[in-house]
Each structure stands twice: as C-alpha cells, then as structure tokens.
C-alpha cells in the first residue's frame, strides 16, 4: 500500500485552540466516540477557560 507523499509530509491537522465549538462537536459525536468519557461528554477546558482559570488560581494568594 503506497503512502501518498502529500499525506506523508503534511503536518497532522490538530486544533491549535480548543473552543466551545470543539466541545459541541465532541458532544454531538459522543455515541461514536470510544475514548475518555470526560472528553466525549465535553468535560474539558477550552483554551480560554483554562487560561482564565489558571490566571485566577495563580493570582489568588495562598491563605
């Protein structure tokens, strides 16, 4: 089975940024997904959510 040159050398298209759209798409395809339940049910951070949460926690002084 020959591998196409353009497929072989091309970067794998994975999203740079995780958005709400990514979550919606994952939830819609949950039945066809066999991986992590958390991910298939949309229980993951979008890039924006993670960065905001990260900033909030790092800016909260330790008691």
């Amino acid at each position, binding site marked *: 089975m*020959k591998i196409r*040159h353009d497929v072989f050398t091309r970067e794998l298209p*994975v999203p740079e940024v995780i958005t709400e759209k990514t979550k919606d798409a994952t939830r819609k395809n949950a039945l066809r997904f066999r991986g992590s339940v958390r991910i298939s049910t949309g229980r993951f951070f979008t890039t924006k959510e993670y960065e905001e949460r990260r900033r909030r926690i790092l800016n909260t002084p*330790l008691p």
Partner: protein
Amino acid sequence: MEEKRKETAELYFQYKRLVIACEELSVDFNAFVQPVMELSRAFDHLMRIEAVDKRLEIDYPNHDGLDDPAAYAYGQEKAAHSHMLRAFFDAADWFSIEIRERIITSMQVYPYEFVKAAFPEYYSEVRTDVEAINREIAGLREKKDVGNMPLKEAERYVDLITRLNNHLADVNNRIPAIEEAGDRIKKDNSLARVKKYGMAAIIAIISGVIGWLIKGW
C-alpha cells in the same frame, strides 16, 4: 537518535503520570486536552520514522529530504521529542495549578491562629515554597523555546512537582490536627470568657453585698 527516543519515552511516562494525577485532583473533573494535541503531533513524527525505517512505499520518495532517510529520521525524532516536551510542560503546569487550588480550598476555611497552633511550618516553609514552585513552572511554560530544552531541565521540573505534591499531602495530613487545635482554642476562649464574666459577676455581687451592709450600718 537512540538517546532522543529514550528521552521521548521517559518524558511520555512522566507526562502520563501527571495526567493521571491531574484527573484525580481536578475539583470539577474537567480534562485539559491541550497536551493531547502535542501527543498527536509527536505520534505523527514517530510514525514517519517508522515508515522510513520499515521502508514503506512512499510516492515521490526523493522529495523533502526523503532521499537521505537517516537525516530525515533524525529530524523527525527531534520534532517528536520537542512535542513530547511541550506535552510534559503543559501537563506540569496543569498539575501545579490543580495542587495550588487544592491547597487554597483546604486552608482558606481555617483562621490563622488555628493553623499557627497546629501547622506552623505552613507559613514559614510550605506557603513560600508553593509560591516559588508555581512561579517557576508558570514562567517556564511561557518560554517559547520550551521544545528545545534539555531533558535535564525537565527532570528538574519532575522534582519540583514531586515537592509540590508532598506539600499537598502534608496539608491534607495536618487537617485533623488543625481542627483539633481549633476546637481547643475555641474551648479555651470560651473558658476565658466565662472566667472574665464570672469574675465580673462575683465582683458585682460582692460590691452589692458590701453596699447593702454599709447601708445597713
């Protein structure tokens, strides 16, 4: 090349350890998929090496450096290693955030005097060290050349993370002692209050009696 592959595998298992721990720690049970994207990219480079190594048939094999398979494979190995480092640092950052949040949630319910009585090192050592570790990990993740960092640096972060995890374990272990100290302090305070008001009441009664006696004379 063998050395790079060994490092990539080592990094992967450090990454895996962190992700497993993070999913257990996460307060809202959310996953962070950014490092998984880095893993996918690393996997793509590793598969290219396998394809060249196993001499799979590729259209136009003389393009893009494929005419020199050894050099091509080395380039791909470096790229895979670099993505694995990014995945590791993303996971390390996530882990340090989760630990910090756990410490904040556990400790914010106790007043200073309770903690000071049962866990004085929290203020003198733990808090300062957690702040320093968080700052170091966060600063490192923001560096653009994280993918080119030597493995030695990553090893240092494994140590920092282990230290952070030990601090959380320490905090969790001291909670019963803090609660006990809190109960003791509350009890002492109420006893002191009873003594104070009791004394005031006795003085008032004695003064009243003396006043009554003087008036009676």
